[in-house]
């Protein structure tokens, strides 16, 4: 009980409260700039906060994390350039809304629903952490592989128009993800004996190029057209609107927590899966998906914010990072003399409750900063294109350089910008490329682990799937989703309904 009181520490210490606020504020803006990632910000903070006490240091990091995950949606909605991989799905329906002059409404609803998703994630962390981490540990390589296959099937949802073009884009992404030295065997793949290629192609550079540069090039086509005027009177969504999306948000938030808690998958995959889920369960959206459906905005945003709480679950209960940011935080706790691991919850339960409190606090700050800066932000889209386009290019270059302080990444980024521009021109969707890059390693590594552990015997592999309840559920989901996308099924459904 005494430990639980640590939950309130953050609210009773002005200094800590201010640090969380400052962190969240900075996070929203860091997250909004493509290339400046939360992971990077938190790793810089490690050396910056080295001499601080542990509580202020953690407060600042948690603020940045929460704000940063949310911030990625800003530029996705306004400029069609996701600030972070977890905001890719947000751009699909957010940007069409901004094109209709509804950026204010889109951002307002996103903020409130992100807040809601964040709370669900924190709630699960506070109440169910040990159960969720036990469940997450049950995932075998085979299950991760099935999860990745489920993810690959999202290509269908992410490609409006031609499915063949979507599959091509997805395969292209998987190939990009395979470049470099294979970390499992140290075999070089697609490196052409160039030492620089060994490290692989930085996935953030691909994302910035594909979305940022190609968007700037597309805008050049209508550089003289007037920008869309934005209505900003309706920012905070009405209670009715929130209530309407509540059931969907609960589902996508739960999805977000679990994907976030799995070591090896994070908010980016959670958001894409949530988008796909929304598309599946929403029978009659007010507008079709891809043209500004609110559901397409709510689903990924609730999921990626819920994934934050999820990522803390294995970190707090087992000392295992749920994603890249919590991995760095574990390092920070070590430096500050704590031993993150399974004993932390037992020996220092007050640390657990302090972190839960800081997360709640950061979530409220996110709501505050999210709803107040909108007018200023929407002005960005109302800027003349002649100013906006160079600005996007500049940000893209800075962002790509910042990933590794390497000029090579800038060249990659520019190259993929041109490829992205060509793809858009010929109607190839960009979402599946990024999906492919994200899932490439997850699929490849876990397939190999799964088949190696069955002594490369397919019979044993399938026997494993059918004897593990978890694998079986995932396998059935893969089969169902696949079948439901074939023409045969559509015919069958039509017959049934007539």
């Amino acid at each position, binding site marked *: 009980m005494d430990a639980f009181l640590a939950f309130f520490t953050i609210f009773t210490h002005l200094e800590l409260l201010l640090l969380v606020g400052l962190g969240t504020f900075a996070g929203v803006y860091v997250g909004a700039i493509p290339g400046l990632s939360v*992971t990077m910000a*938190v*790793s810089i903070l*490690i*050396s910056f906060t*080295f*001499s601080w006490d542990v509580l202020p240091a953690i407060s600042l990091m948690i603020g940045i994390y929460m704000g940063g995950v949310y911030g990625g949606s800003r530029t996705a909605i306004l400029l069609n350039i996701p600030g972070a991989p977890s905001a890719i799905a947000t751009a699909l329906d957010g940007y069409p809304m901004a094109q209709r002059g509804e950026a204010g409404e889109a951002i307002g609803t996103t903020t409130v629903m992100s807040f809601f998703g964040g709370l669900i994630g924190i709630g699960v962390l506070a109440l169910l952490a040990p159960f969720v981490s036990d469940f997450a*540990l*049950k*995932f*075998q*390589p085979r299950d991760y592989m099935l999860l990745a296959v489920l993810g690959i099937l999202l290509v269908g949802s992410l490609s409006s128009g031609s499915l063949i073009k979507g599959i091509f884009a997805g395969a292209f992404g998987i190939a990009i993800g395979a470049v*470099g*030295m294979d*970390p*499992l*065997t*140290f075999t070089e793949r697609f490196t052409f004996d160039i*030492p620089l290629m*060994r*490290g*692989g192609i930085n996935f953030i550079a691909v994302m910035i190029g594909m979305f940022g540069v190609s968007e700037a090039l597309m805008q050049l086509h209508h550089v003289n057209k007037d920008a869309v005027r934005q209505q900003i009177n309706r920012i905070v969504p009405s209670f009715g609107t929130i209530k309407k999306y509540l059931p969907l948000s609960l589902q996508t938030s739960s999805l977000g927590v679990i994907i976030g808690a799995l*070591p*090896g998958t994070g908010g980016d995959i959670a958001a894409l899966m949530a988008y796909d889920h929304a598309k599946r369960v929403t029978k009659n959206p007010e507008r079709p998906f891809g043209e500004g459906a609110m559901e397409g905005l709510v689903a990924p945003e609730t999921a990626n914010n819920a994934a934050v709480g999820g990522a803390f679950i*294995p970190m707090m209960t*087992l*000392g*295992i*990072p749920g994603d890249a940011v919590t*991995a*760095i*935080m*574990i*390092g*920070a706790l*070590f*430096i500050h*003399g704590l*031993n*993150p*691991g*399974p*004993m*932390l919850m*037992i020996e220092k339960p007050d640390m657990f409750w302090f972190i839960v409190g800081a997360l709640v606090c950061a979530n409220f700050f996110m709501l505050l900063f999210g709803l107040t800066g909108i007018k200023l932000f929407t002005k960005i889209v109302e800027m003349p294109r002649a100013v906006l386009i160079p600005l996007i290019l500049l940000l893209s270059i800075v962002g790509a350089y910042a990933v*590794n*302080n390497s000029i090579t990444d800038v060249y990659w980024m520019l190259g993929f910008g041109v490829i992205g521009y060509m793809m858009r021109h010929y109607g190839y969707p960009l979402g599946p490329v990024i999906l492919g890059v994200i899932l490439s390693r997850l699929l490849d*590594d876990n397939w*190999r*682990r799964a088949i*190696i*552990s069955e*002594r490369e015997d397919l019979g044993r592999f399938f026997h494993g799937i059918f004897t593990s309840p978890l694998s079986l559920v995932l396998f059935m989901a893969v089969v169902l989703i696949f079948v439901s996308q074939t023409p045969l099924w559509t015919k069958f459904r039509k017959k049934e309904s007539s």
Partner: protein
Amino acid sequence: MKKFVIGAVSALSLMTSAAIAQDYPTKEIQGIIQWGAGGSTDTVMRAVTPHAEDVLGGTVVMQNMTGGVGAIALNHVANEDADGYKLLMGAENPLLYKVMGLGDKDYSDFVPINILARGTAILVANNDAPFDDYAGMMAYIAENPGELRIGSTGPGGLPSVVTAMIETVEGELDVISIPYDGDGPALTALQGGAIDVMPAVLGASIEAIKAGNMKPLAIMDTTANEYLPGVPAVTDFNEGFATYLPWGPFFGVFVKQGTDEAIVSKLQGAYAEAATNQDFVDLMASRGFTLMNISGDEAQSFLTKWQQGTSWLLQDAGLTKASPEEFGIARPGE
């Protein structure tokens, strides 16, 4: 006259060199960390460097540069000027680059500033594994060939060296080796039952062992470890391991070969003092690392011995891409 000119010039160069060292550092020093933020190397470097900064009276800006098993960072520093403003903060991996075909440079292109600490390897098993110690594991492998799943982190990683050591001492092992990205993900998989046994560094597994989430089989050392009393050393089961032990990964700070000697000794002094700082000593203890704090010839001979022993172990296990002989790495004892 000629002699005088040469003498004057060399005196002048000595003077300027001394002056450079006197002023050093006049600008920011950059520390390039070979591994990602939050990992072991990162934690060690970020913990010791601020204390070295205090002694140096300058700033060291640290940056993580990952990729190519650390080769990208090593080549980056090797391509910069040898002016003492770029430090390489790395682990043991570069000593195996040549034999593993990962690059043509290693620590022989650098001067060690300080070998800070070394880790100890330990064999851990999933709680449900049907054996409780090293002898039990060997018996299980003999009775169930091809069934035991051992985690690895790719050729040249700590698990591959430990496995090679066991095979050299005990003979061929009929087990399944499952590769992971690092010991973190592999230890997670161990707790979930995807693998049965994992050779890991003590610091990465110590908390989970204390909590009873995995069981220790043997410490890969000649004596039991002070941080985990009660876990037997592997030499208690088989004396044959004594030839190769103690062995372990290590962390060190380096500058490029050719850096002014006065600057090198200034950096050596700073890091030697920093490594005695109580906070740093405590951190090393809590992570199960053995403090070394050696430099100069002592560090050089440590590196040579490590490279010879490990390269030939991997060579004999058939894991190398090129023979150590090609690079003039002598077999230990020759």
